[in-house]
């Protein structure tokens, strides 16, 4: 068996005096579809940023594809939460996706023909090719999410990391996005951060429950007791076979 693509070993991190992660260890295998769940402020996004090399661990080590995160980050595709940039920025879908080619293309002048071809393939795969010339300000939440996934795919990533990919879109579109991710998982290792446990457990092989400390489960092993431990209050379970339709958004199961 090949070595894990990501190894997180005993990592701790804090912002100023507030501890966010404590002695977290995690190994991600090639081809896996890992879900990281946990309450807001539980350290999910922080763990992603550590893996991406945007933050440095205070203690412990992280190896990505056999090297340090800062060196490996060009092999990763990152889909950030989309609240973090200006949706009225004057940029087209195509130009946004092309940004995924940065770091693989020439330094001077514009993108070359190969970059444009790869961007077109990424848009084709995410079914947004017909939106290529639209400004991003004119997109729906689900469309914008696909644009961000296409941008990450244009990087030719070996691993795709997504931070709350369904936070701002409605449940029907959410299902489409996860179906897309499931398809991509046939060739790309996936890590998805979500607070939507009930929903993602239909798609993932393994779930890491993160609330400062991290516990891993295979999806079939999630029980009410584990969730209660994670969220610190009794939780109504949505069973894995339950497909959510328009009415019951999975946030409900945290109450």
């Amino acid at each position, binding site marked *: 068996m090949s070595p894990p693509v990501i190894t997180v070993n005993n990592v701790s991190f804090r912002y100023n005096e507030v501890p966010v992660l404590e002695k977290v260890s995690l190994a991600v295998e090639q081809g896996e579809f890992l879900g990281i769940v946990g309450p807001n402020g539980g350290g999910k996004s922080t763990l992603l940023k550590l893996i*991406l*090399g*945007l933050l440095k661990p205070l203690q412990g080590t992280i190896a990505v594809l056999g090297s340090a995160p800062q060196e490996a*980050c*060009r092999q*990763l595709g*990152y889909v*950030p939460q989309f609240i*973090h*940039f*200006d949706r009225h*920025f*004057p*940029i*087209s879908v195509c*130009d*946004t996706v*092309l*940004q*995924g080619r*940065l*770091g693989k*293309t020439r330094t*001077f*002048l*514009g*993108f070359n023909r190969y970059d444009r071809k790869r961007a077109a393939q990424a848009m084709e795969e995410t079914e947004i090719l017909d939106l290529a010339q639209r*400004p991003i*300000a004119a997109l729906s939440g689900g469309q914008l999410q696909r644009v961000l996934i296409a*941008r990450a795919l244009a*990087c030719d990533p070996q691993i795709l990391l997504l931070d709350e990919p369904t936070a701002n879109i409605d449940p029907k579109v959410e299902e489409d996005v996860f179906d897309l991710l499931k398809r991509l998982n046939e060739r790309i290792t996936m890590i998805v951060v979500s607070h939507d446990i009930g929903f993602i457990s239909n798609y993932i092989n393994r779930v890491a429950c993160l609330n400062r400390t991290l516990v891993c489960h295979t999806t079939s092993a999630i029980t009410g007791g584990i969730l209660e431990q994670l969220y610190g209050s009794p939780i109504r379970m949505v069973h894995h076979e339950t497909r959510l339709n328009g009415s019951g958004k999975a946030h409900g199961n945290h109450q």
Partner: protein
Amino acid sequence: MNGFIDALTSQTFLQNALWGSVLASIACGIIGPYVVVRKIGYLAGGIAHAVLGGMGAAYFLGKSPLGGALIAAIGAALLIGWVSLHEHRQEDIMISALWAVGMAAGILFISRTPGYNVDLMSYLFGNILMIPRRDLYLIAFLDLGIAVTVLLFFKQFLAVSFDPEFARLRGISVEFFSLLLLTLVALTVVILIQVVGLVLVIALLTLPAAIAGNYTRTLGRMMVLSILLGFLFTSGGLALSYQPDLPAGATIVMLAGGGYLLSTLGRRFRRP
């Protein structure tokens, strides 16, 4: 208006002034959209006012004020840029401090300069009618530098402005390109000071680009439209101010402000 066109054919100083407006429009049309989309108008204002310190010092030492302006502008841009990247919480204070202290230093230097006292008003509000030909060559050279740099690094500047975190993950040096972009803002400020003076710089840096942003959907097209609008406002202001002998810089800014008001109102009425 006819008087202006007649004078334009015969008077060298008016021809120089018109060339000055063309060259200034190119710089502010290319850089203005970055200032608008990155929302750094206040930062640009800080650089513009800090420039008075450099101009005053150069004047005091008997050197070219334009040289002093260039050094002060780039220095202020790099300082604010560095603070913004590393001590983001201090950015606002830093800009305010540079803004006021730069002006204070300039005024002290000018007051201590012996001999015939410089016309402070022309630094503050510009005097495009007095622009000498050799300054036009320098401005043209700066324009060329700005245009070539933006052409070479267009995709990096776009990425750093749109989503710096993602740009960093793709191996782009966000720090280098942010500071380079601010240096270009500083050069543009120095060019615009020749036309409208340092108090009014922000108007030309933001208003044409903001109007262009109402009608275009990509940064490149926003730049082209900004250049055209900038030329319309500067040359129009020059022409309007000529006959009644109004201050050209202030007339240009009023025209740009009126244009922005109309464009924004028009947009509201079109899409209620």
